[in-house]
């Protein structure tokens, strides 16, 4: 078993190495054609300069609402946006003063083309399209304690695909589930937004070694999910889910397990 995994890992690593070398060769071929070697990873990007379009914007001396306002930038003043940390943007004034402004204040500025900078409203559902979702949850899997992770990708406002991983720790046995699923969210704009989905994967059950010495068991599992996202702030959601697991066992009867979990999800 372990050898097989090692073999697979080696295979994947070799493939990655091959892919990398191919890319490098292609790059260097391309290089001779057009000044590739001018490419500089650490090249400074063009500075992002915006003009203040409000009476004033407060500049804090730290990335937080509680940190003191030590400076203000006034209408017509040009500021350079340096970087963003959570919902705070580090700026530099023309005179070289650096400080932090709130993300929402960016709507009080103008881009070089005279339009407002394109910073989407974090409360709108469109904001989450083309984004990855990372979630974790804790719950109950037929009496066992469940720890869940999921990594998803949202294609449209309504549709997302995800990889689900669960580690269930029970009194008599532990189990792991790896599954691939899709979810549909009919009302993505709602504050509490329900979703449903299906998933398929594999469950590996290993009985506690203190009880009996037996082999790990692998079975196919199908899941039907019903859940809801609750919007907390920006890209942070609470996620609760009920899952019905159908385990296709090697016995005569298939097992049906009910599972619930509560967790959080972050879109990035």
């Amino acid at each position, binding site marked *: 078993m372990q050898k097989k995994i090692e073999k697979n890992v080696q295979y994947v690593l070799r493939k990655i190495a091959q892919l990398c070398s191919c890319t490098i060769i292609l790059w260097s071929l391309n290089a001779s054609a057009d000044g590739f070697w001018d490419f500089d990873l650490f090249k400074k990007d*063009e500075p992002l300069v915006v003009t203040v379009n409000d009476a004033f914007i407060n500049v804090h001396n730290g990335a937080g609402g*509680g940190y003191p306002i030590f400076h203000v930038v006034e209408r017509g003043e040009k500021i350079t946006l340096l970087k*963003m940390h*959570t919902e705070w943007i*580090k700026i530099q004034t023309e005179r070289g003063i650096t400080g932090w402004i709130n993300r929402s204040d960016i709507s009080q500025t103008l881009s*070089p083309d005279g339009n407002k900078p394109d910073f989407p409203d974090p409360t709108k559902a469109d904001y989450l399209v083309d984004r990855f979702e*990372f979630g*974790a949850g804790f719950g109950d899997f037929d009496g066992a304690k469940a720890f869940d992770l999921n990594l998803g990708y949202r294609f449209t406002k309504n549709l997302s695909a995800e990889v689900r991983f669960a580690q269930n720790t029970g009194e008599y046995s532990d189990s792991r589930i790896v599954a691939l699923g899709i979810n549909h969210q009919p009302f993505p704009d709602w504050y509490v937004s329900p979703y449903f989905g299906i998933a398929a994967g594999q469950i590996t059950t290993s009985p*506690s070694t203190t009880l009996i010495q037996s082999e790990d068991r692998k079975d196919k599992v199908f899941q039907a999910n019903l859940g809801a996202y609750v919007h*907390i702030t920006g890209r942070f959601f609470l996620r609760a889910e009920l899952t019905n697991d159908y385990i296709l066992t090697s016995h005569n009867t298939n097992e049906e397990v009910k599972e619930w979990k509560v967790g959080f999800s972050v879109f990035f």
Partner: protein
Amino acid sequence: MESRIQRIFLIGALLIATATASLAARADEPKADDNDELGKIITPDLKRRTIKESDLDTENFEVGLYYGLLTIEDFGTNEVQGVSFAYHITERFFTEAAFGLSKLQKTSYELLSGGVQLLTDDQRDLTYYNLAVGYNVLPGQVYVTKKFHFDTNIYFLAGAGNTHFADKNYFTYNFGAGLRFYSTDWLSIDLSMREYAFTHELFGTKKDTNNLEGRLGVSLFF
């Protein structure tokens, strides 16, 4: 003869004229460039574009290494090292994943009884992973001089995960608090405490354990 000399001169003049003309023509090309250069100087070097959020570099991810001491009930106090990975959602909320390695000592019973061994050497290797949600409860600043300061944060966190030793996973709740000290925008030092609570049945009956960890870490934001 005269007309012949005239003709030679004429041909020469014509050649010079075409040469200069073509030279002038060639010279015109860079001249056009000069105009562009001039244009660049006159009009400011700003592209007429809308700035998008994705143009801006974000520093919301944090990766860190830590080292500390972990006390596991009945199994002594042991060195622990680990990696942590965090995502800062808002200025207050963050999520943190951690993976740590430690080793268990012998229980007092094993030491006193002489030959008895409850666990093999391999079973004494302890690993844990967990995921937690944190809240920066007391953001602060320390002032070195009137203007020169460092940002700090006191945070609480709670979560769950699994602890693996003695060939079994134990579902583990974790709670913690810490002080994060930002030396720069992108480098922070973390001094914190964690509590791991799990139940095991290694001694025959169920036993709830509370295990404490003190640790010091360094993190990078990217």
